[in-house]
């Protein structure tokens, strides 16, 4: 049992981060905190992919003499792409938050809601 828990520690981290991130997105009313939650959520998926790429006793996937076993480089490459997508999403989200702040004067979801419906 202990082996199961300790042996999969990276996956536990993934699950905890995933839940923390998703919960933050859902529960927080502050638009910036939502973006942070979204980032934590995405990072957990990056960890998941990197974990999948690990090969026991494997070295970094750079061809060198005397090394027989390499980690799987493909998940790393996939996650590089996903990181780029994540950065673009964050940038766009923050840009939108700036525009929301400019036009509403607040970045709290409930206050924005009230402003839109009190007209």
């Amino acid at each position, binding site marked *: 049992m202990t082996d199961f828990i300790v042996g999969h520690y990276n996956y536990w981290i993934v699950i905890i981060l995933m839940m923390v991130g998703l919960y933050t*997105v859902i529960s927080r009313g502050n*638009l910036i905190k939502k973006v942070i939650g979204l980032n934590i959520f*995405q990072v957990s*998926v990056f960890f998941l992919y990197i974990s*999948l790429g690990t090969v026991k006793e494997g070295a970094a996937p750079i061809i060198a003499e005397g090394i027989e076993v390499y980690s799987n480089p493909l998940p790393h490459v996939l996650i590089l792409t996903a990181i780029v997508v994540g950065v673009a*999403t964050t940038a766009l*989200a923050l840009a*939108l938050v700036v525009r*929301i702040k400019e036009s*509403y004067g607040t970045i709290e979801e409930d206050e924005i809601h009230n402003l839109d419906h009190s007209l």
Partner: protein
Amino acid sequence: MEDHISLLLVVVPLIAAPVVAVLPRGRSAWAVAFIVAAACAVLAGMQLWAVLTEGAISYELGGWAPPWGIEYRIDAVNAFVALIVAAIAAITLPYALLSVEREIPEEKIPLFYSAMLLCLTGLLGITQTGDIFNVFVFLEISSLASYALISLGRDRQAFTAAYQYLIMGTIGATFYLIGVGLIYSQTGSLNMQDLATLLPGVLHLKTVETGFAFIMIGIALKLALFPLHLWLPNAYTYAPSVVTVFLAATATKVAVYVMLRILGTVFPQGFALTTPADELFIVAGIAGIVIASVYAIYQQNVKRLLAYSSVAQVGYMALGIGFASAAGVTAALVHLFNHALMKGALFMAVGAIIYRIGACRMDQIHGLGRAMPWTFGAIVIGGLSLVGVPGTAGFISKWYLVVAALEQEAWISVAVILMGSLLAVVYVGKLIEALYFKPVTDTGTAVSEAPLLLLVPTWGLVFANVYFGLNTDLTVGVAEKAAAILGGMKP
């Protein structure tokens, strides 16, 4: 060149996007964007023709052989969807010229068309690729472009709508990514064809089942399948008219395609039946049709009314997928095409009203139908098509859907499909009543008919609604071929 059509469809708009962004004037940006969209439509047409006559196309990107390299694999299913996307783009752009000049500040117009082309790139890319990770990348290209496009709407609510869509869309895409990762961990492959041969051996694993669930929920979010539709009404309501037309007619359709592809090609046919997925599709479809249609009736904003109607229409497609039979998949694909036509026409007509009076609330459009007879005519025919009156494209969709439901003896679904039509009569009727039968509200200025450049594309789609309501060779013929490839998911 013929060999490279599949790649050109993605590369041409992708390269054109930054070119358009640096053009100095709105009109020149528009001209380039229009030429690119028209070229894509021609290419997509050629591609569909090639697939129908010569069979599936496999294009190896950079000469790397699949399953290691990325493969673009085109068969009747995605050639059909790619044609819908490209054709809608080519029809929307002539309409865009005046509408965008009215709604977007001049200095932002080149950027607007650049984002539009990026969105087109993403959507076409999703249809072309045969690699499930590549689907994620294109999904995000199109989504990021559409968040930016939506935020360009005139009201400040456009920002919050875009933000809301961004949050939900990213969660959906990330769920999809988790699913892809889990499946990759058990198969070591990302190529759809390769997965189709590898997955049957590992289906009993919980990891694969979990991956399947993540992918389904992720795409259902992008699809705006009830109850995951919450981003859609605001996004469609506050986006610039052109963006609403384009997204309503293409974005959710492409998501339906991804769903069908995962269910029919990547996973073995029949796998969905061992999971609760197909029942969930039927339940979500039924709930979506009924609840979203009722919501539509009570809307005070015409665009929001049509947006809720879109959620209901997605419900019909979900029903078709849920039936998991060849007839059901055919119905879903036929409705996918027809709904693009009707919502395209309707949102264009509403855009023409916005062009003239700058708003589209129910109480502001009273009596406008008499001042704008052609726009009004388009709304009437588009609305009839939405209801499913014989002689319009909508009837064909409903017909095939009801046939598919009868085949399964799914009586509740049959009743719901017919009830959905009745509810559509109510909300379309409400719209027509406001436009024609209510006395004109005195605004001081006389409203004239929309300019020709807006009317011609609108009526192009209206005629398509009637044409494909009478001649179903293309739609049903191709959809049946496509359904044969995806298979009845029932063995």
